[in-house]
């Protein structure tokens, strides 16, 4: 069923009796050409592009819970193409271009909203760094504008400009960045993949691999063995747990990141802002809630909840930047498990086991990567060659010294 404005009107007039489930709920077949582990944004996008671009449709996505229950449904929905390094920026620029055409492409309203992202700067050194980053972005086909304090004031007059410790001196504005309705991304990709024949199998956990003579033959699951010519792991925060079953140790630590939503307010913040002097970033959802977050809890965790000191730290950051939110009440907070890599950059690669592929290490920034991650992973699975914008995302890059460390903080996953 194609969705359209006309369809909405027709259904409204006929008692909404014509809507059908957006994807099937099939039992797994004995084997597939490709089995994707993990029904998050990346797994579903991979299935979608495999079936749509590469016409590989004998594919299953195996999800241990329900699709969209992982980080794809827990993030703060920000998309952007504002990276510095050559290994990264072309990839994120492809991702943003795919976001720009996504809703037409998969016929689903994902509420892609290019409302602009403003990274504030508070010191001269930060301004220099912002200028450098902006130039790198422009060289890679993205957009960036450096604003002075007055430029920022014209956009957001209510910010705390003259704070004695953190005066706002300007900001780097990335107009094409913005937000997207996160679970709609999972649903849209799921529906598009299902329509082309992909089986989405929920409530089915992968518990092991069948590996013989260095070749992966399929996966053991709670619904029995499923054979596969290629197995593609795509489980974000669970990466180490799943790949350990194939005997692999990864350059990844799992950490918890929290996010928060306030009560609904009238429209006050029409873009995304990030504080440059503390860990706080914020946007306003279409329902009116301020959606914001800050830093990791800093210690390894698989609990999808964090602790109070970080809550306090994030609120303090918010108050330092936007004193006007002092009386706003918090509605909800939650946590998600991040696959923090050793250099802060992801992996899209083959493993040393024939037929076993790995996608992970997305840290707190994998939502924006969803379309390009699916695009490039599908390319790798279909052609056995890395996509040209993802050639740097190799698992052996630490051994060869080709880290992609945007922040330059070394092998400390919680600092990226």
């Amino acid at each position: 069923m194609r969705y359209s404005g006309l369809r909405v009107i027709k259904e409204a007039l006929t008692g909404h009796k014509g809507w059908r489930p957006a994807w099937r709920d099939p039992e797994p077949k004995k084997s597939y050409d490709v089995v994707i582990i993990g029904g998050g944004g990346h797994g579903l996008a991979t299935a979608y592009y495999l079936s749509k671009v590469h016409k590989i449709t004998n594919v299953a996505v195996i999800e241990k819970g329900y699709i969209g229950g992982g980080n794809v449904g827990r993030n703060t929905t920000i998309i952007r193409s504002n990276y510095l390094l050559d290994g990264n920026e072309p990839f994120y620029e492809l991702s943003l271009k795919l976001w720009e055409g996504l809703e037409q492409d998969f016929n689903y309203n994902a509420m892609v909203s290019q409302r602009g992202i403003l990274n504030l700067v508070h010191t001269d050194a930060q301004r220099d760094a912002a200028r450098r980053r902006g130039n790198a972005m422009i060289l890679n086909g993205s957009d960036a504008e450096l604003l002075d304090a007055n430029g920022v004031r014209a956009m957001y007059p209510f910010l705390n400009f003259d704070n004695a410790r953190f005066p706002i001196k300007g900001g780097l504005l990335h107009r094409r960045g913005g937000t997207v309705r996160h679970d709609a991304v999972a649903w849209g990709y799921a529906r598009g993949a299902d329509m082309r024949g992909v089986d989405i199998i929920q409530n089915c956990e992968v518990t092991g691999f069948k590996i013989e003579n260095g070749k992966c033959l399929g996966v053991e699951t709670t619904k029995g063995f499923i054979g596969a010519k290629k197995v593609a792991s795509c489980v974000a925060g669970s990466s180490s747990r799943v790949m350990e079953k194939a005997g692999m140790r990864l350059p990844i630590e799992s950490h918890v990141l929290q996010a928060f939503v306030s009560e609904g307010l009238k429209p006050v913040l029409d873009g995304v802002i990030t504080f440059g002097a503390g860990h706080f970033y914020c946007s306003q959802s279409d329902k009116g809630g301020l959606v914001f977050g800050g830093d990791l809890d800093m210690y390894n965790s698989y609990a999808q909840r964090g602790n109070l000191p970080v809550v306090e730290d994030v609120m303090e950051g918010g108050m330092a930047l936007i004193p006007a939110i002092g009386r706003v009440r918090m509605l909800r907070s939650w946590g998600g498990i991040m696959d923090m890599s050793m250099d802060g950059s992801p992996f899209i690669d083959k493993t040393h086991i024939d037929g076993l592929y790995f996608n992970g290490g997305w840290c707190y920034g994998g939502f924006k990567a969803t379309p390009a991650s699916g695009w490039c992973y599908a390319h790798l699975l279909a052609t056995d060659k890395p996509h040209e914008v993802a050639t740097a995302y190799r698992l052996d890059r630490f051994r060869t010294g080709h880290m992609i460390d945007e922040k330059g903080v070394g092998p400390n996953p919680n600092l990226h």
Partner: protein
Amino acid sequence: MIINHPLLGPRDAQEFTYLGDASLIDRPDWQAEDAADQFHEYVYLRENPAGLHKELWFHEQGDRSWLVVTRNTVTHEITNVELARDVARARGRSK
């Protein structure tokens, strides 16, 4: 989280900074044949378990000692705290 410091008693985890897996104590021998491989594993690869995890915490806003904390990464429950010095010595390091 409360960390029961072996010398100072229960302290708020906020007084500490976190480094990571306590296997970082076992720095490989730089003269070994396969030193490059060993260092690659030591610096970059992690068990990252869901469950009990031995990890290094530094009492930065306290007595500045390093601790080995055994903590469950699924529940955040701390079951054992030792001075990293004692752990390292028991393993034959920094005599």
